C-alpha cells in the first residue's frame, strides 16, 4: 500500500480556522458570572520596608469581598531557591512587587478599591547595577538567604552575599593557552533586562470546591509544574489539584513559571473558595510579572596567528532581579554554552546569578543563549579585524566538529549536534557574502552584513518526562492527547504529523486534544526548551507502536493469521504479502463484531512515554556534565543600510540556516525561525527595561516599550540543513527558540563594521550610534 509522507510537509495548524474566526478560546475568554475579580496593588518602591498597609477604606468600597496582604498566608516559593513570597511580606524588593490583593465582584470595583489602600514604606538603599550587587560590602537583598530551602541541585546560594547561584567551567588550561596565544582580546558586553510581551497577558482563575478539589484555569506553559508547586507550597493533595490550560496567546518562556496561580489560590481561599480571576494589565505584565535576564559579561579570547581560538575566559553577571526563579539555571546555561559552536579546548568561565532590586526574571526564548552568544560572536568579529581575516572564514576554521567536546566536556557527534560548517557555507551563499561585507552605495549610504553562529541545548531537568495517549475512534480516526500546551508553534499539529507518519495514515484523520487538563492529559514536564516535538514525539511513536500492536493482535484473529503477518497503513490492517486482504481500523477500534453477533477486543487505547536520558548535573568544580539530549546549531546574518550622516540604519535582510535535523513541518518551522529573528531584532534595536536611579521601571507600557511594528521588518530568509538525530522522532531536533539567538550579535557586527565603531551593548539605537561616533555632545560648529 502506497504511503504519502505526513512529515516534511507544511500542514496548517489544526486549530487554524478557529483562530481566524475568533472562535479559538483562550483562558480569559471563558467568562462566567460566578467569577470574582482580583486586582493586585504593587509596590511603588524598589527596596523598602513595609511599615504599614491600611485597607480600612478599601474594605468598605462597593463590591469588595476580601483584601489580603502577605500576612494572610505567608509562604515562600521558588523552583530553585524558595525565596519569594507570592505577596510581599514585611519588605519589598522590586518596583511592581505585589503587596496587596483586592477581591471584588467586578474588575472595576477591585480596581477602584486598590486606590483606597494606604501603604507606608521605609525606603532602603537600592541595588540598581550588577557590579554593585557583587561588592563585598553590598547591602543584602535577602538577609535570610542562608535559611531558604533550595530544592534544586543547581542552587548554590552564597550566604551573606547577593549571589543566588553560580556555575564554574574549567576545561583545559587557559593560562597556558593564553601564554601560547599570538593575540589576546578582552572586552566587556552588556544586555539589558527586557519583556516577553506575549500578546495575551498572564491571567489565572482559581477555585476551591467544597469537596476539596482545587481547580486552576490558567494561561501557562507549565500546568504540570503548577500542580507540583501548588501542592508543595500549600500542602495540597495532587489528586485534588486540577490545572487546565486552553490555547495560550504567546508565552516565550514568560509563562513557564508559577506566579499569579499562587496569588489566585490564596485569594480564593480568602473568599471561601469562590472562583477568583486575576488578569494582569499590560503594565503589570511588564513591571510585576517576571522578565528576561540582563547580563554583563567580560570575555577574553586568545588565538593563534592563523586564527585558531585557543582559549576563552569569561565572567557573566546575570541580573536575576529580586528573586531567583530560574535565574541560576540560566546562568548555568550561559556558562555551559559560553564558547558558541566553536571548538575551544581551554575554557574558564564563571557565571553568577545575582539578586538586584530589579524585577525578577524567568526563562525567555533562548534561555540565556542570546546573552551567551552576543559576547563570543562580537569577540570573533573583533578577532577577525585584528587578524585581518574574513569573519566567516574564521568561524569556519573554528567550527565545532564531531569528536570535539563542549565546555561541559560532553562529546560532540554529528547526530547530537548537527553540522555547523554546512550551516556557515550555506549562509555564505544565501546572503551573498562573497560580494563583500561592506558595500558603498552611490547615495553615500553603506550596505553591510554581519553574521553570528549559535547553538543551544535544552538545559532540561534530567528527569523531564512526556507522555502521549492515543485513542481510536469508531470511524478509524485517532485522537491524540498529550500534556504540552499549544502556545503558538503548532506542536499539537506536529505530534499529529508524527502519529500519522508512524501509523502511515492521513494527517486529517488524526486529531489532537487541543487543551491540557492535568487530570486527563499525560504529564508533560513543561512546554519549554524547544523540547516538545522531541519528547512528546518520542512518546507518540511508542504510543503508535502500542496501537499498532493491538490492531495487529485483534486483526490477526479476524484475518486468521499471526500478528507478524500483518502491517498497518491507510487506516487498514492488512496481510503483508497480500494487501487486498485487510480489515479497516473502524471495524477494530471499539471491538470487532462478527456478522452473527459475538464481539471480541474492545476500545483500542495506546500510550507511550519518554524520559530524558543520560543528563548529568554539572560538576561544581569543573562544570563537567551533560545539559541536554542534543544541540541544535545554525548560522545567521543581518544586512543593513547605514546612513553615516544621520547615524541611522535600516534593516534589509535577516537570514537563518539551521540544522535541526528532520523538519517535521517546514512551513511552521520557517515561521518560528522568522518570528525568532524578529524578536532578536527587537532586542538588538529597541527593547530594554529602563530603570531610574530609584530602581523604578520607567517604560512599562507598549506605548513606551516599543516592539517592532509591521513594515519595519527586513526580508527574512530561512533554509535548513537536515542532519538527523538518531534518537529523535524521525530525526527531529528542537528549533522553536533558536531564531532569536544569534541575531543581536549579527546586527551588532553589521553596525560595527558599517560605522567603524564597536557596539558591545544592546540595544543599538540611532542615538547610541550617534553617541559612539560623536561623543554624545551636539557640536554646533
Amino acid at each position, binding site marked *: 500500500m502506497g504511503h504519502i509522507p505526513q512529515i516534511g510537509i507544511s500542514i496548517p495548524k489544526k486549530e487554524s480556522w478557529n483562530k481566524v474566526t475568533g472562535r479559538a478560546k483562550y483562558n480569559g475568554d471563558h467568562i462566567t458570572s460566578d467569577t470574582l475579580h482580583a486586582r493586585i496593588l504593587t509596590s511603588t518602591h524598589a527596596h523598602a520596608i513595609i511599615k504599614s498597609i491600611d485597607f480600612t477604606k478599601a474594605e468598605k468600597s462597593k463590591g469588595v469581598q476580601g483584601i489580603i496582604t502577605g500576612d494572610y498566608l505567608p509562604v515562600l516559593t521558588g523552583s530553585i531557591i524558595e525565596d519569594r513570597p507570592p505577596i510581599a511580606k514585611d519588605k519589598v524588593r522590586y518596583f511592581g512587587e505585589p503587596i496587596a490583593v483586592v477581591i471584588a465582584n467586578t474588575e472595576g470595583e477591585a480596581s477602584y478599591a486598590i486606590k483606597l489602600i494606604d501603604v507606608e514604606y521605609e525606603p532602603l538603599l537600592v541595588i540598581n547595577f550588577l557590579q554593585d550587587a557583587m561588592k563585598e560590602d553590598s547591602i543584602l537583598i535577602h538577609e535570610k538567604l542562608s535559611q531558604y530551602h533550595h530544592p534544586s541541585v543547581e542552587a548554590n546560594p552564597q550566604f551573606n552575599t547577593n549571589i543566588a547561584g553560580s556555575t564554574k567551567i574549567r576545561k583545559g588550561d587557559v593560562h597556558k593557552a593564553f601564554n601560547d596565544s599570538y593575540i589576546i582580546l578582552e572586552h566587556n558586553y552588556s544586555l539589558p533586562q527586557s519583556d516577553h510581551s506575549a500578546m495575551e497577558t498572564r491571567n489565572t482563575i482559581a477555585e476551591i470546591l467544597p469537596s476539596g478539589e482545587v481547580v486552576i484555569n490558567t494561561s501557562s506553559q507549565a500546568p504540570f509544574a503548577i500542580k507540583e508547586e501548588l501542592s508543595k507550597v500549600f500542602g495540597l493533595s495532587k489528586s485534588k489539584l486540577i490545572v487546565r490550560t486552553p490555547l495560550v*496567546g504567546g508565552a516565550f518562556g514568560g509563562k513557564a513559571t508559577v506566579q499569579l496561580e499562587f496569588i489566585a489560590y490564596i485569594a480564593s481561599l480568602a473568599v471561601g473558595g469562590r472562583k477568583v480571576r486575576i488578569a494582569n494589565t499590560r503594565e503589570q505584565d511588564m513591571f510585576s510579572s517576571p522578565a528576561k535576564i540582563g547580563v554583563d559579561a567580560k570575555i577574553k579570547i586568545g588565538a593563534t596567528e592563523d586564527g585558531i581560538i585557543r582559549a576563552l575566559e569569561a565572567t557573566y553577571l546575570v541580573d536575576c532581579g529580586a528573586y531567583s526563579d530560574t535565574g541560576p539555571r540560566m546562568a548555568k546555561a550561559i556558562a555551559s554554552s559560553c564558547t558558541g559552536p566553536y571548538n575551544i579546548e581551554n575554557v574558564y568561565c564563571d557565571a553568577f546569578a545575582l539578586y538586584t532590586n530589579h524585577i525578577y526574571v524567568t526563562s525567555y526564548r533562548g534561555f540565556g543563549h542570546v546573552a551567551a552568544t552576543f559576547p563570543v560572536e562580537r569577540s570573533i568579529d573583533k578577532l577577525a579585524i585584528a587578524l585581518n581575516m574574513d569573519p566567516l572564514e574564521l568561524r569556519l576554521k573554528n567550527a565545532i566538529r564531531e569528536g570535539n567536546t563542549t565546555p561541559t566536556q560532553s562529546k560532540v557527534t554529528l547526530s547530537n549536534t548537527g553540522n555547523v560548517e554546512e550551516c556557515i557555507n550555506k549562509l555564505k551563499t544565501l546572503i551573498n557574502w562573497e560580494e563583500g561585507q561592506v558595500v558603498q552605495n552611490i547615495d553615500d549610504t553603506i550596505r553591510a552584513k554581519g553574521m553570528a553562529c549559535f547553538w543551544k541545548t535544552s538545559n532540561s531537568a534530567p528527569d523531564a518526562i512526556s507522555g502521549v495517549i492515543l485513542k481510536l475512534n469508531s470511524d478509524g480516526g485517532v485522537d491524540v492527547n498529550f500534556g504540552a500546551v499549544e502556545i503558538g508553534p503548532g506542536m499539537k499539529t506536529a505530534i499529529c504529523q508524527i502519529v500519522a507518519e508512524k501509523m502511515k495514515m492521513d494527517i486529517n484523520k488524526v486529531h489532537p486534544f487541543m487543551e491540557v487538563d492535568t487530570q486527563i492529559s499525560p504529564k508533560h514536564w513543561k512546554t519549554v526548551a524547544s523540547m516538545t516535538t522531541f519528547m512528546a514525539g518520542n512518546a507518540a511513536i511508542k504510543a503508535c507502536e502500542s496501537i499498532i500492536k493491538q490492531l495487529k493482535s485483534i486483526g490477526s484473529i479476524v484475518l486468521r493469521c499471526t500478528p507478524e503477518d500483518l502491517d498497518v497503513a491507510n487506516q487498514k490492517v492488512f496481510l503483508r504479502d497480500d494487501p487486498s486482504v485487510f480489515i479497516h481500523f473502524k471495524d477494530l477500534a471499539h471491538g470487532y463484531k462478527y456478522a452473527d453477533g459475538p464481539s471480541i477486543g474492545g476500545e483500542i487505547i495506546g500510550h507511550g512515554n519518554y524520559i530524558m536520558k543520560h543528563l548529568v548535573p554539572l560538576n561544581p568544580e569543573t562544570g563537567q556534565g551533560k545539559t541536554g539530549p542534543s544541540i541544535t546549531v545554525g548560522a545567521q546574518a543581518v544586512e543593513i543600510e547605514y546612513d553615516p550622516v544621520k547615524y541611522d540604519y535600516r534593516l534589509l535582510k535577516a537570514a537563518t540556516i539551521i540544522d535541526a535535523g528532520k523538519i517535521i513541518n517546514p512551513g511552521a518551522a520557517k515561521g518560528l525561525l522568522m518570528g525568532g529573528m524578529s524578536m532578536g531584532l527587537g532586542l538588538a534595536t529597541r527593547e530594554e527595561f529602563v530603570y531610574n536611579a530609584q530602581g523604578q521601571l520607567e517604560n512599562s507600557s507598549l506605548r513606551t516599550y516599543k516592539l517592532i511594528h509591521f513594515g519595519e521588518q527586513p526580508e527574512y530568509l530561512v533554509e535548513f540543513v537536515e542532519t538527523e538525530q538518531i534518537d529523535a522522532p524521525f530525526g527531529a531536533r528542537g528549533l522553536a527558540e533558536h531564531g532569536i539567538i544569534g541575531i543581536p550579535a549579527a546586527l551588532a557586527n553589521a553596525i560595527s563594521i558599517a560605522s567603524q565603531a564597536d557596539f558591545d551593548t544592546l540595544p543599538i539605537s540611532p542615538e547610541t550610534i550617534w553617541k559612539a561616533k560623536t561623543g554624545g555632545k551636539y557640536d554646533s560648529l
Partner: protein
Amino acid sequence: MLKISGNTTLVLNINGEDREIIAKPSDTLLYTLRNQLGLTGAKPGCENGDCGACTVLVDDWPIKSCLMLTVEALGKKITTIEGLNNIPIQKAFIENWGFQCGYCTSGFIMVCHSLSIHHPDADEHTIEEWLQSNLCRCTSYQEIRDAINSILK
C-alpha cells in the same frame, strides 16, 4: 439631548443584528462585546490602544474597541471577527502562516478586511500605514504581508 446614567438597556447593531445589551457609560465597547455578548474574538492586549488585538469595525472602519465607550456605538454598525465568515483574508492568513498563537489575529484580520473594502488595490505604503496599528509578537510580519498581498488587487 441624550443622557445615560448607570446600567441601561441599549440596542447595538452587531454583525447585522440588533442586539439588546446592558451597559453603563464607563463600559468600553470591548468589555460589552466580550462580557455581554460573548463575542470574545476581540481580545484585550493592552486596553490602551497600543496593540490592536481588540480591533473591530465601526461603520466599516477599524476601531480599537478598548478606546471606545459602548454608548458611543449607538446607531452605528459594528462588525466583529465573528461576523466574518470564510472570507478570503481568513484563508490567506492560514495559507501564509500569518499567525502562531492567534491572539492578535482577530484584530489583524479586521484591519485587513477594512483595508480590502476601502482600498482593494492598496499599495505597499497604504498596507503598511494600516497594519502598523497592530502588534504581533509571534510572526515576523512578513507572513502577514504575504497574506494581505495575496488578496489585494
